[in-house]
């Protein structure tokens, strides 16, 4: 009987590992707690992209409402996948979306891309030299930051934004942030 127990042991060990693997699937390792979580947005001021007559995009635009800051580029295929969802969001929700047009080699390609696929953004800054992107700690495009009404970064999403993330994470967080005045660093 004792000998039989030894033969069952590998199976038990595998069950434990399998349990954690299954649990691991429900977690997202990419959901890195952003270095900037709970910190004010970095100071930045970007010029407008061509064809937009407002005055670019800077941290001052982030001070009155909870807003999303989306990093995109016409060269980025995942942004193209994400884009229809942002268009929907801009029509259906009243959370403003701002854009940082990142690493365009040609200053015309960003505006053209927006003309072709639609423009969901309230403010858009041109960032060909990654000035703001580096300050935000962007690792790739698309990336989206949730910034509260005091200009504090509350969440960072890596990769295309989708309905699941919006419903599950961003929307509840926005509700919470809009209705309460939450002290820094508690989320």
């Amino acid at each position, binding site marked *: 009987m004792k*000998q039989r127990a030894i033969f069952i042991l*590998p199976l038990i060990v595998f069950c434990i590992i399998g349990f954690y693997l299954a649990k691991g699937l429900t977690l997202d390792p*990419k959901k890195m707690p952003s270095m900037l979580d709970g910190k004010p947005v970095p100071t930045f001021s970007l010029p407008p992209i061509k064809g937009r007559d407002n005055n670019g995009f800077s941290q001052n635009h982030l001070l009155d409402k909870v807003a999303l800051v989306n990093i995109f580029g016409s060269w980025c295929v995942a942004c193209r996948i994400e884009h229809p969802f942002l268009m929907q969001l801009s029509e259906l929700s009243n959370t403003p979306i701002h854009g940082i047009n990142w690493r365009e080699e040609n200053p015309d390609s960003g505006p053209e891309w927006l003309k072709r696929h639609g423009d969901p953004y309230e403010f858009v800054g041109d960032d060909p030299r990654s000035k703001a992107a580096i300050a935000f700690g962007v690792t790739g495009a698309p990336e989206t930051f949730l910034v509260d009404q005091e200009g504090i970064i509350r969440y960072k999403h890596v990769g295309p934004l989708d309905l699941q993330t919006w419903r599950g994470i961003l929307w509840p967080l926005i509700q919470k942030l809009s209705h309460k005045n939450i002290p820094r660093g508690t989320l």
Partner: protein
Amino acid sequence: MTAELGLFALTLAFAVALVQSTFPIIGATKNYISWITLAGPTAITQFVLVALAFGCLTKLYITSDFSVLNVVQNSNTSMPLLYKVSGVWGNHEGSLLLWVLILALYGAAVALFGQNLPPALRARVLSVQAMIAIGFYLFILLTSNPFERVFPPPPDGRELNPLLQDPGLAFHPPMLYMGYVGFSMAFSFAIAALVEGRVDAAWARWVRPWTLAAWCFLTGGIVLGSWWAYYELGWGGWWFWDPVENASFMPWLAGTALLHSCTVVEKRDALKSWTILLAIITFSLSLLGTFLVRSGVLTSVHAFATDPERGVFILALLIVVIGGSLSLFAWRGPQLKTTGLFQPISREGALLFNNLCMTTATATVLLGTLYPLFVDAVGGDKVSVGPPFFNSVFIPLMIPMIFAMAIGPLLNWKRGDLFGALGRLKLVGISSLIVTGATWAWHNDGPVFATLALGLSAWLGLGTLVELAGRIKLFVPGAGSWARVCRLTRASWGMTLGHMGLAISIAGMAGAGGWTQESIQTMKPGDTIKLSGYDFTFKGVHQRKGANFTSAVGTFVVHKNGIYVTNLSAEKRNYPVGKMQTTEAAIHTTLGGDLYAVIGDHDGNDGAYVTRLYFNPLVVWMWIGAIVMVLGGVLSLSDRRYRIGAPRQSRHGHAKELEAKSMI
């Protein structure tokens, strides 16, 4: 049409695998001859069909057919042909297709070359192979179809990740998969043996060459990957204990243990259930590696695009294959009877010690790899387990094993003479102490473990030579040493080269790990930096245009004591399609060490660049050692006993006769 043909062939292969996985194994139990004989033809048909599907995908890549999504995502008309072809397996879907192709290739090989296997065993083995294949066919057809069309087709594709556009990495995945998937043979044999309830020397003799072949490929694949990391990532390092690297290293460790325990089953009819378990574990770790890389459970520097839905599928596959086989093991394993007696001080005792060290090392790497997952799952912080953990646990585990590696081959089977063996190693011991001491006196600035490792390398290398000398009676006058050299079996040469290769590699790892010199600075053209006695003079940067990239080439002239040594041209490449930059390190290799230069970003306007210069001692020894190890494996694989040594089966029952023959 090609894409549809490929998908059709793949679906047919799946259907054939369904037949192959059921009829032969049932036939083997019920003794239906016609069902048993189905195994061979179905295995070959399945291979032909998968090869056709793979050929179709390759054709789509070569002709740059951008109506297929997979080609759009991983190819571009401006890419050189080599990378168009390697693009086939440089992505999730294509690499899975390569996986089943190799799986089917091994199956077909058993069908063609396994004529001397007992038909029932062969039928069972091929059925188990087909069961594994079914899991992968379903995975491809349901979640990862490489032949998916896209409409409207774009004018040109995105390209293959530029980091992968490299000759070393073009062949890394096929080699690695030949290794991973090769262990499926040992697995299938193990399952077949559990079903039959019998493991004997003949069984071990059939399993060992497949394991050995897989081991050779896996070793080659790991080394190619490591070599690539060394020159392409431009960090001067060659092993990072990254989850993906660990994923390939764990099956290697377990596979090495399996190779050695197979020998014990073959020669001493002992360690049977342990060997079966190792065969299951080795392939399970290969599968786990696939899971870790693709499921998104762990992050890694070079993971495939991850997708949780695929993760769920692979996890289900893991549970069925690993959970199922371990349950079978728990049920049938206790019935495997061992006849051989077991003395601790003996050749088999030494091999068992090797197994203990290797499996503990495997468990350590597994723990370190999965630890972030455990912590994350119980709601702890995001942690990453880095090189400090692995180095401080793995290296101490290897020290006793390498120490024993020189002694083990000197012990006899059944009952060894430990003191006699140590006596023969007296000179070796003294020499390695001298090596350690000399290293310490010459460079006591390095870490202690590196100094020790050089001593151990000498111990193992010289110890292996002493064993060889003893076997050919080199120092016995009139013993006819040369004739003995000629009579040595290739398997014993394999052992000698395998151990020798490891000794050489350890020296390389110790040198590169312990005494690497690094210098990072901004250099203007004309500046000179002194590193490890070499003077690196920066000559500035010029632009170059490649097929699908532009690059900045920084040139260094290296002198030592005023004498010209070499020119180093380090590149920083810019791939416009994928908007990616890669570094191409410039390396000048000598036996003593590599001169290694990388250029970074330009700094200011006066032609100044950030440069990183390294002196990596003894790195080339690692690669040489690995080649020697693989060579040893290949030699051993061509040993006579695998070609004609396996006993033929008789027309009726085979069990008694085989057992009798294997006793001889």
